[in-house]
């Protein structure tokens, strides 16, 4: 799986410090990580381990205190806020635990939103959004508001929103956290299918069972990461499953 091309995500000796009541907390401590195109990586850790901070940094929602972060060949750790917004819009599709859909907008309008901020013309925007909703099997629910959809459907709308702009990375933060086991499994299956179609997925979770469905598992503890021991086996087995 070692690729000669530039990895999609390359993080080098990255640290994030918080000052809390005069005490400095190392939320991330000298982390280095590479994610290749087409990878499906799970970042697993208990709460307080720094995984949310890592997700915020990877998602360009937060800037690191030190270290370097290349996203799709671009150094993004020192960019200005408006440039970061653009990168979030183009390179990253967010899938949140709480879905984070806008309740007053229909499924279609929610999916269109990132395209609006990208400045895609209305007609093309609608086509792309419908296409994304079709990918998650919700082409029949375009006009429904989030409140009229089940939890699993809402999460699939959120995934469609992440897919709509066709970003290189899907960044999922506990995507099954708010779902029951069965719909959670459906969503995970959808993620695996998307990975099979070539989407790079970074999944953040505290659930070992979920993380084991990924090809690579990275454990995070006290701001430091370690690649899981059975990583190679996981990768091979998932390759066999996927194949």
């Amino acid at each position, binding site marked *: 799986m070692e690729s000669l091309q530039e990895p999609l995500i390359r993080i080098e000796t990255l640290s994030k410090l918080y000052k809390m009541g005069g005490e400095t907390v190392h939320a991330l401590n000298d982390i280095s990580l590479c994610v290749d195109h087409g990878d499906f990586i799970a970042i697993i850790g208990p709460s307080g381990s720094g995984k949310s901070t890592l997700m*915020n940094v990877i*998602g360009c*929602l*937060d800037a690191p205190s030190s270290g370097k972060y290349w996203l799709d060949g671009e150094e993004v750790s020192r960019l200005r*806020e*408006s440039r970061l*917004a*653009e990168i*979030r*819009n*183009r390179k990253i599709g*967010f899938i*949140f635990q709480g879905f*984070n*859909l*806008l309740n*007053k*907008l229909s499924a279609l309008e929610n999916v269109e*939103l*990132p395209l*609006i*901020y*990208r*400045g895609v013309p209305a007609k093309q925007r609608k086509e792309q959004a419908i296409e994304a909703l079709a990918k998650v099997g919700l082409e029949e629910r375009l006009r429904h508001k989030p409140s009229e959809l089940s939890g699993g459907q809402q999460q699939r709308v959120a995934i469609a*929103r992440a897919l709509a*702009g066709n970003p290189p990375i899907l960044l999922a933060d506990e995507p099954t956290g708010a779902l029951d086991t069965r719909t959670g499994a459906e969503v995970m299956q959808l993620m695996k299918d998307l990975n099979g179609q070539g989407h790079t997925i970074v999944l953040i979770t505290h659930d070992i069972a979920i993380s084991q469905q990924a090809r690579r598992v990275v454990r995070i503890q006290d701001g430091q990461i370690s690649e899981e021991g059975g990583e190679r086996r996981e990768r091979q087995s998932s390759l066999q499953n996927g194949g």
Partner: protein
Amino acid sequence: MNVSQAFKMAAKSILANKMRSLLTMLGIIIGVAAVIALVGVGQGTTKQVTDQVESLGTNLLTVSITGRGSKTTLDYKEAEDITSTEDIEFAAPYNQQNATVKNGSESTSVSVVGSTADYLDVKDYSVAEGRFVAQIDLDYYQKIAVLGSTTATDLFGTEDAVGKTFLINGVRYKVVGVLATKGSSLTGSNDEIVIIPITTSERLFKSKGVKSINVQVADADKMDTVMTELETALSKKFRGDTNSYRVFNQQDLLDSFSSISDTLSLALGGVAAISLLVGGIGIMNIMLVSVTERTREIGIRKAIGAKKKDILTQFLIEAIALSGLGGVLGVGIGLGTAQLLQKFADMTVVVSIPIMGLAFGFSVFIGVVFGLFPANKASSLRPIEALRFE
């Protein structure tokens, strides 16, 4: 994100909270409606006053002779001498007293004007029946009278008054003409009047001399010249006794009325503008609450790629849309109020397009000013914190 997209979002957001949007706009609605209705009333009053003053006739000068006694009286012949220049179209010296007029059992109190033939033209009357006072009546001290239309009906009912006789303060006069209805002006009814030759009236009221002269100047540009000429002539006649006469320009009267009503309009407009300002503060308050309430929405939008500028535009446009919509509703309500006032309160209300434009423009401007602060607050939210907000 372009502006039309932002307007669509604003419309959606306003429609999603109809009741709240309406309450937010209320201040602006009332403000704009008040500006339009109150300034309309102010301008209506101005127009009414101006119209009435103008109905007295145009290019009018009034000379009033206040002096009495042998040195400072002016008889009508002298008055006519003074006013017989070519810049003066008509000049009617007159005196005026209230008297009781009587025909059998019908009696009424009217203003009795002693004047000359020019009075008809100066006052812009027209004769409905019979004739007006003529020079020969003056020369022979004829006891004839011309009646105003109301007085004619008061005394003679529906009968034809011309040729009949009636009493003024007990002296019998013959009606030779009836004037056409003119309506009322600032100086009261124009139709409750009896006009007799000035020479006769001097005898009747035992008062020598002319009290006033109404002068109609041929050309508006000559007003000042004629005024100076008259003043010079009168000064000469009265040997410099400037206290015994005055020359008024009707324009002065009009100007002072206009300045009063302009001040009135300004004061009314000012009060209304303050209520607009208060309305703007209302919008700011609600927008600030709305920013807090929608923190999570802002976080989501920012996470999926909305820039600071996009959020700023969205909230600013929302504030402008709110105030603009409030402005439109206010214009409608203001126009409606103006119509109602005109119909039921019997007021003259003039609604002017520039004032409507100004009030609407000001409301939009207020939306921008008071929308900036909340919009800036919204756009400066950091996405992680906004997303964490519950």
